[in-house]
């Protein structure tokens, strides 16, 4: 039993793996944002103009962090109906976030700003590349949430383990926080 209680105190290996993975992802964005800072101090930098839509998307992803938390609370309390509702809401908010990001970049394009191609400026290309990579990570999160939600609805044996969701939720908060960091960064380091 000694060994058991020792194990109990330890973090689950999969959760631990996720934490290391988040450190790794963070390094990628640290690399990108430092590149941005280096670039910014050089000639022909263009002041970023951040469209309003990005504020909406920021609010969306913050709210989704809240709903995923509610989903987690629900499954811990075995309230499966609420759980399913919050899961679907979260995934939908995630998708909405991605949609808003795309709208934001379209808005930039309509203002005559070239993100890529001839005549593009590195300031905006950075905005696109960094937000795009962030978006891919959000997309991964949306897919993970959907898979968990679908499994919860369809499996024959009733599974009440909150572990997969705990892992997904941690990741979800992470991509949320990452976006907030990037958003502040872009607004501050125009």
């Amino acid at each position, binding site marked *: 039993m000694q*060994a*058991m209680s020792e*194990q*109990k105190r*330890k*973090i*689950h*290996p*999969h959760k*631990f*793996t996720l934490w*290391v*993975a988040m*450190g*790794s*992802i963070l*390094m*990628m*964005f*640290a*690399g*990108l944002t430092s*590149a941005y800072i*280096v*670039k910014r101090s*050089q*000639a*022909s*930098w263009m002041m970023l103009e951040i469209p309003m839509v990005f504020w909406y998307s920021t609010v969306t992803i913050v709210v989704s962090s809240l709903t995923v938390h509610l989903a987690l609370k629900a499954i*811990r309390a075995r309230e499966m109906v609420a759980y399913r509702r919050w899961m679907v809401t979260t995934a939908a908010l995630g998708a909405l976030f991605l949609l808003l990001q795309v709208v934001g970049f379209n808005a930039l394009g309509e203002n005559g700003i070239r*993100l*890529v*191609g*001839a*005549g*593009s*400026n*590195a300031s905006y*290309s*950075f905005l696109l*590349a960094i937000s795009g*990579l962030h978006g891919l990570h959000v997309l991964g999160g949306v897919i993970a949430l959907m898979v968990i939600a679908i499994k919860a609805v369809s499996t024959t*044996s009733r*599974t*009440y*383990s*909150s*572990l997969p969701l705990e892992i997904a939720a941690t990741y979800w908060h992470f991509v949320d926080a990452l976006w907030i960091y990037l958003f502040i960064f872009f607004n501050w380091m125009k």
Partner: protein
Amino acid sequence: MSSEAIKHGHAVAEVHSHDAHDSHGHDHHHEESFLTKYIFSTDHKMIGKQFLITGIIWAIIGGLFSVLFRLQLGYPEMSFPFLEDLFGKWAAGGRISNDFYYALVTMHGTILVFFVLTAGLSGTFANILIPLQVGARDMASGFLNMLSYWFFFLASVVMFASLFIQTGPASGGWTIYPPLSALGQASEGSKLGMDFWLISMALFIVSSLLGGLNYISTILNLRTKGMSMTRLPLTIWAIFFTAVLGVLSFPVLLSGAVLLLFDRNLGTSFYLSDIVVKGEILPNEGGSAILFQHLFWFLGHPEVYIILLPAMGMVSEILSVNSRKPIFGYLAMVGSLFAICILAFLVWAHHMFVTGLNPFLGAFFVLLTLLIAVPSAIKVFNWLTTIWRGNIRFTPAMLFAIGFVSLFISGGLTGIFLGNSTLDIHLHDTYFVVAHFHIVMGVASFFGMFAGVYHWFPKMYGRYLNNTMAYIHFWVTLVGSYLIFWPMHYSGLAGMPRRYTDWSNWQSFNQFADMNRFISTVAMVVFAVQLLFVFNFFYSIFKGRKVKSQNPWGANTLEWTTPINPGHGNWPGDIPEVHRWAYDYGKDGREFIPQTEAVGEHESKH
């Protein structure tokens, strides 16, 4: 996680999942098909072998490329019609074309640095040794581990395919500096081949990250009872730090590669500014090619230690086992690995001394770079002290381990030359650098890898490698490597630049023509002897002398407490408990005391 565990609530589920992991070994007699056993295996031992064999195949390809370009460098005036038969327009008239030469050098570097000495080395030994030496049934996630191999495999397929593209594979050096690599119109090798290179590397990075996450998580979470961190064998410590380096530095390379892909395919200007190619003025403005170098070397320097640390770890273990003496300064060994790890992130700009880097900034990088000599020297001192007056058994593994120490000293000393920014103005991009890194990283890590293969082959396949072939392999490789790379220091000091196809029109380097021919000849001999090793390897898998004893080297670590041919789960019964560190050799009149043996009442302290 077992489905049983899922039924219980949250806290219970966690405990159970560990149990499920532990009970893995008892019952693993259910049928495994060929596919699940050899191909889509989640057994860490099989995955390790997959990495090793894939690595060997890549090493043959990468090594062969070096023979081809050495042919050109050593015999610039000769023509080899068979080359034209083989490579067509790339070797028109039996001589390797400039484009082809650069492609070969680039692929040689990429393949050996990433596919052989990173995936082939870390992938193999991290997989085989971590669970066996920390006392775990398998990795934290067998599935991610399998994915790690298959991403490597995909990366391999893409890279291999790039060799057959009409415009040839990437060619811009293994460091693929823009603007050359960013502009398709700049050279053949910057066309489709470069996109393949980038895609392959992206897959490779994913593979490394998945592997690294697993290694870290397993080492920290799945150690058997009694296996505290300070009782870990140094192999595991080294692999741990390697994984940490990889997890923190590879993503930065990925970000650099993504921006390069943007520049190549979407017309952005991250790295490009004011460029004229073939008379055409490009619209790109405001980019900075130096930015790429920062991103690249922030990975690139840690990468060289990613390659070296596993070799260091295995060498430490093998030297101790075969000297029948405890490792000298265990904690200093761990501490110096840690110091190397930290410093590895702080010295990348020593590759950029001549890029117009602010000399004031350069001074800091000189200081930090030279600081690496301190932990390196500690390690060398401890290795030498470990074998000093030991009861040495000159097994092939031991010879390669000693060879490693010799090479590490030789190559480390030239690093100190290069680390001085003023000297580097002269030495940068000459053969002196080529000599430095081939000795200290290339050959040394290969020696670590060979040492590991010779030492753990009995555990992997239940048979021994042939000793006669092993001794030939060792001596020819050791002598040959020094003969190849030592002379390069001289031509490098004389200013002979690297990455040139032909120096014969260059009066000042004509004096080295004989030397170059000599180097090329030795290179071919050394390559042939590596094929002997490959033969020995595959022959011995099937026909080697069988291992009869569970612990053939009389070693203390846990892998030798498993059956001679361990199944999935490693130990048929319970995982043994650990009572001591791994280096009780020659203690209290006993030759070795396994980690599983309880500490006796009257035992002396180590």
